[in-house]
């Protein structure tokens, strides 16, 4: 019986993260950490994961130069890390697949997952189909409506999609319901959290399985260009994409930026910019920067992007920000939509709305004198076509 965590549960000088979980989930979390550590030390697990990432996911993903967009924006060079080209179309598969393999090693027969934009849900459903595990995905009803193609994809992969009607019907409520479901079925089910948040060990687990993005990107940049870029930039919802790209660049002399959803206004409830508007708090098992009211109730959020409207920034990314390792900026709905259109027109690549928030920051980086940028294109935009059609009037 594992009775204590052995990996660090806290991040940064302010001790973010932790394990604020109901007692029912404590032993499952302790067991998960032990299984994770054992897997990392097992060459068999590493070999299986590597093989699946190559032959099922399609890694390594390309680092694509975007010379026409760079010239248009006044940058010398722009490199796009193409997570949109992974199987299922976003970086989420890196973590979902790894955790599904881990769950099977633990003897679990069911996977529970939450999803916002649907990308993590699709990734989990695909990984489960691949490995022969049952899959149940909790998804807010608002997100089910705006990301309908992903709901259909999950169901085609054999997953059960459970609509969550509470609150705003978005990711926060989906996580609530997934945690409740896991507390009821923790003996036979593993919960694959899709972002670098939740109680320990989830933030560490997710970051570990996502840093393949930045490790590849860094090696590719060194191989394809004369050196490292001046800035590396990613969008940040919970933080799995942001950490995945940025962490491998932590030792390098360059700017690391994460872009949050600026939504449609600066007031609480109109955005999901946790750095400006958030205060330290505890939600879903971890202590981090959280959008909340004075009573400690989670605030509502708004973003055109279903993947960026989570009210908390993952604890490790928040710690890196507070300790000065990562800069946080915000991009509005309109800026993200315009940036998506520009990438389509200049490079023939349709980005997800989430990734478009990172793209939207490029003009201000150019204005600040940055010449070379590596940007994490976290996902493809097919799931967002109806939003693009209505908001961009095409």
């Amino acid at each position, binding site marked *: *019986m594992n*009775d204590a965590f052995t990996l660090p549960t806290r991040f940064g000088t302010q001790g973010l993260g*932790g*394990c*604020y*979980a*109901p*007692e*029912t*989930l*404590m*032993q*499952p979390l302790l067991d998960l950490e032990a299984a994770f550590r054992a897997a990392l030390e097992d060459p068999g697990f590493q070999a299986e994961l590597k093989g699946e990432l190559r032959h099922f996911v399609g890694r390594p993903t390309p680092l694509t130069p975007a010379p026409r967009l760079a010239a248009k924006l006044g940058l010398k060079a722009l490199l796009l890390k193409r997570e949109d080209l992974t199987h299922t179309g976003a970086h989420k598969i890196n973590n979902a697949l790894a955790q599904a393999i881990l769950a099977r090693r633990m003897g679990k027969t069911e996977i529970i997952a939450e999803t916002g934009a649907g990308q993590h849900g699709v990734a989990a459903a695909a990984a489960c189909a691949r490995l022969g595990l049952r899959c149940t995905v909790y998804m807010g009803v608002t997100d089910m409506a705006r990301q309908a193609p992903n709901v259909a994809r999950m169901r085609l992969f054999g997953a059960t999609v459970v609509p969550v009607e*509470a*609150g705003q019907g978005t990711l*926060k409520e989906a996580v*609530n319901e997934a*945690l*409740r479901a896991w*507390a*009821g*079925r*923790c*003996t036979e089910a593993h919960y694959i959290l899709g972002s670098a948040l939740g109680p320990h060990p989830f933030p560490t687990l997710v970051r570990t399985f996502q840093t393949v993005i930045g490790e590849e990107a860094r090696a590719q940049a060194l191989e394809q260009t004369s050196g490292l870029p001046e800035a590396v930039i990613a969008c940040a919802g919970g933080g799995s994409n942001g950490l995945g790209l940025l962490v491998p660049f932590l030792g390098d002399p360059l700017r690391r930026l994460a872009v949050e959803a600026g939504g449609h206004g600066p007031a609480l409830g109109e955005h999901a910019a946790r750095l400006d508007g958030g*205060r*330290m*708090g*505890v*939600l*879903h*098992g971890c202590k981090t920067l*959280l959008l*909340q009211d*004075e*009573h*400690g*109730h*989670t605030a509502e959020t708004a973003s055109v992007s279903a993947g960026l409207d989570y009210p908390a920034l993952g604890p490790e990314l928040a710690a890196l920000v507070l300790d000065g390792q990562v800069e946080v900026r915000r991009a509005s709905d309109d800026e993200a939509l315009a940036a998506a259109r520009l990438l389509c027109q200049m490079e023939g690549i349709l980005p997800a709305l989430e990734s478009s928030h990172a793209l939207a920051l490029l003009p201000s980086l150019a204005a600040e004198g940055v010449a070379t940028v590596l940007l994490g294109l976290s996902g493809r935009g097919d799931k967002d076509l109806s939003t693009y059609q209505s908001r961009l009037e095409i």
Partner: protein
Amino acid sequence: MSLNPLLPFLMAGDPSLEVLPGYLSEARALGIEALELGLPHSDPIADGPVLQAAAHRAIARGATPRRILESLAGITASPDLILFTYLNPLLQLGLEPLLRLLEPTPVRALLVVDLPEGEEPAFETALRAAGYPLVPLLAPTTGLARAQRLLEARPDPGPAAPFAQRFAYVVARLGVTGAGQATDLGPLTARLRDLRGITARPLAVGFGLSDPVSLQTVRDLGATPIIGSALVAELTSGSLIRTSLGARLPR
């Protein structure tokens, strides 16, 4: 030691803060010794649909943590209260304001659903020193060695202390609060026997208990049954607290 026959749960602010003093005094008059009072939270991850809905109604009606505690100030016709809450509202209040608000109330202990022992040691120690111990929770997934450690970390202050400060909360089944389907109480019998082997303190059993038969089964096993979601649901549909509690007390 005589067995406390019933530990009821109410959600503060549902249906309103105004009715709360009346509820508490009626509970007291029925002989209820201790009562769990829920502090409504926006994201109650350990609660089922009934308590979720009650929390959201209470929040919508303005039942903030501060108002709730202020409404309890000076009340003496009440069972001992165990404040049943999630951590974040307490963190946002801050320790000192929280202690000032608690001081004139009948609150005698806190049950913080998402605060495992050791995560906020300074906060927990200060609360205990001020007379507000945290209730240890023992889930079906809690092994006996871990249970022993949790009980030692949140120790029994001894027979002179009130039930509210002494009991350990035994979670009857996996999942969230709420009556749901009838709970098979078979495993609970073995569980309580095992726990009795490591502790003599009072045990209360909650999650999924509602009908008089299961409540009596728990009593027969030497533990106090907790009645939460079923009580809240009845009060919501217009039942009198006297009726709902009276029907569940042993004759």
